[in-house]
């Protein structure tokens, strides 16, 4: 008996901590927080540049596009160059203003062909909601127009 005891390695007698229950609790908490938490969506940018206060001597090579967003009852209407009524509502989940977008793309292409920057003057009725204004700016961005002049007076 004494010979066998002497032959046993000393390490086997060391105390060991059972961490399996700790891991169980950790996973339980992890799953609880995964299920109960709501992920806040990250905000993104819609950048626009206002016209510089410095005067330019160069003559305008392209006529500016005048866009007016007017409030009509509970909705709105978008008038381009004083006469042409385009969209009166957004379409689809992506909130597209198809006719305005088409018109802006054509204007942007024309400006690029003339090797100049597109000039957009935007009047937004004071009664229009922020979301509608962002829908219009979203169209501008989609047509690769990054500078706009906000007008206080309807064209």
């Amino acid at each position, binding site marked *: 008996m004494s010979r066998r005891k002497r032959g046993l*390695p000393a390490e086997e007698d060391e105390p060991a901590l059972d961490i399996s229950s700790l891991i169980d609790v950790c996973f339980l908490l992890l799953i609880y927080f995964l299920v109960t938490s709501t992920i806040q*969506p*990250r*905000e*993104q*940018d*819609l*950048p*626009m*540049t*206002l*016209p*510089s*206060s410095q005067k330019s001597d160069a003559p305008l090579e392209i006529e500016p596009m005048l866009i007016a967003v007017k409030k009509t009852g509970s909705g709105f209407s978008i008038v381009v160059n004083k006469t042409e009524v385009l969209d009166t509502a957004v379409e689809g*989940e*992506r*909130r597209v203003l198809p006719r305005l977008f088409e018109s802006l793309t054509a204007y942007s292409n024309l400006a690029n062909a003339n090797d100049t920057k597109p000039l957009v003057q935007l009047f*937004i*009725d*004071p*009664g*229009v*909601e*922020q*979301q*509608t*204004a*962002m*829908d219009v*700016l*979203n*169209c501008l*961005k*989609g047509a690769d127009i990054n500078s706009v002049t*906000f007008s*206080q007076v309807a064209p």
Partner: protein
Amino acid sequence: MASNKLRALNSIEEKEDEMDMSPMIDMVFLLLIFFIVVSTPLVVKVDPLVKPAVAFNSTKPIDKNGRIVLNIRGEKDYYKSDYKGADAKMETEDEIAEYIEKEVKRINAMNSEYVPKLHLRGHKEVLFEFSQIAVAGAARAGVNQIVFSVYPFASK
């Protein structure tokens, strides 16, 4: 003799090569602490009462330097970046212009290469005229870069 051989074999197994991880862990912690101490977090504070509009053509923020955050909760209800501060609330275009001018000076003093830009966080249901007041205030302060804060998708 047989037991001697067995003991000899056992002693060989015990001398297996082991990598000592402790210096590596020391270094990792040292580097972690170094970067935590040295780095300055660049945070755009978000007013939870402002829920921005949705725009699908928006882009991810590339440069967060030089931003002057302005939250618009409603009429005469403008808030600075630190919306919890005692003097955070603003009501008029003059107050907005004064705030932006002060921020422009601070940004220029920090780094002259930063371009000051107005980071406008308007609630989606407020009228756009309040945003126009803010834009006019920015223009008076000499800031012509406006960044409208939006969500890239409609939340369900």
